């Protein structure tokens, strides 16, 4: 009996460790999903301001990025721009929030990818913390009623972007 019990007692420990190692310590569920998106005021690189109010009635894609965030931000940048060009006429607004960056480098990044959707810096990290951002890139999907519907950590892919946008666009039509 004793001979079986000792190895048997290791099993729950191993299971715990297996579960622990499989979970990503960096993957934190956002408590903001399902709640109203926090208000923000963004000063755009092209001049002018943009706030959450301008998202009213539109589906919003709020993307947090940095020029030093390589390769993820560089991977998703063309996808975001293409998504913007495709969906802008369907009532979708893409917004880029540049965090923890320097202005020249951020502008260079925007030039590199020919970004045409509004982008602005968050020099004091106020928007980042309000949105519970802990890294770049992170993308938030906001529905027409201003509710936060999803958070995506890491580079956005085209299928994901399409799926989320179609979902939110369909949702508003009901």
């Amino acid at each position, binding site marked *: 009996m004793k001979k079986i019990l000792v190895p048997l007692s290791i099993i729950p420990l191993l299971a715990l460790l297996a579960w622990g190692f499989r979970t990503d*310590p960096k993957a*934190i*569920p*956002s*408590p*903001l999903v399902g709640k109203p998106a*926090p208000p923000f005021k963004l000063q755009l690189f092209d001049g002018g301001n943009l706030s959450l109010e301008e998202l009213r009635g539109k589906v919003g894609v709020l993307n947090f990025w940095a020029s030093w965030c390589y390769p993820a931000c560089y991977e998703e940048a063309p996808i975001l721009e293409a998504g913007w060009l495709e969906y802008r006429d369907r009532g979708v607004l893409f917004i880029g929030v540049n965090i*923890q960056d320097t202005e020249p480098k951020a502008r260079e990044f925007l030039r590199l990818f020919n970004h045409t959707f509004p982008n602005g810096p968050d020099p*004091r*990290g*106020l928007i*980042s*913390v*309000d*949105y*519970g*951002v*802990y*890294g770049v890139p992170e993308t938030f999907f906001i529905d027409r009623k201003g509710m936060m519907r999803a958070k995506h950590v890491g580079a956005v892919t085209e299928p994901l972007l399409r799926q989320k946008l179609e979902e939110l666009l369909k949702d508003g039509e009901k």
Partner: protein
Amino acid sequence: MKSILLAPARVPRSLQGRRGWGSPSLRTAPATTLRAGPQYLVPYAPFGSSSPLGPPLPAPSRWGPRRSRECCAQGTPSLPPSSSKALARATLTRAVWVTIILVLLFAIRAMAAPVNEDEVREIAFLLRCVVCQNLSVADSPSETASQMRQIVRERLALGESREQILDYFVSKYGEWILLSPPRRGFNLVVWGLPFAGLLAGLVTIAVVVRRWSRSRREEPAEVVDPAYRERVRREVQELDR
């Protein structure tokens, strides 16, 4: 220091050319004070003295009375007797002005009062640095952490309590943001398990030690074959011989 030295020297000179100096000096008074004003808005200016105009705090309090005294001492001889009433009125008006400005400045200073940095650090110690691994916001040199410290500082300056600030961060990041999980619900396992483990270990040690000592005590006394004992005795005797 410059501002203190400059102010009295400049004012009489400007006054010398004027006869009735009630209104002109009044016009200069707020202007000079206002120029000194914005320095108070700079936090920590009294400590840093990075401003080329020197520490701004003592300037107005000394400047007010000294200026009027010097004005009068130098200005009185050239003053027409008819304007003494105007002078009194001007002095009074200026005193009112100075008082108003001083009160305003103190109000601004009180509003911009530096937050207790110990409090900022204590709160930052409770928050997890979001870009680090197992490091508090107080310990991390990262930009995110310093921005978070600034947010803590600003919220403290607005009069928020520690709980309110922690709740704000929890509402944005979830309980994950707290370095030590709150002692309720499932989290109690984390808090209780180490002590339960310690207790279990102590009990195990006690039981094992007891069993060992008992088994030693219960061990039968050494049984030696009498013949063997006799033989050893004989051989030792032989060796001694």
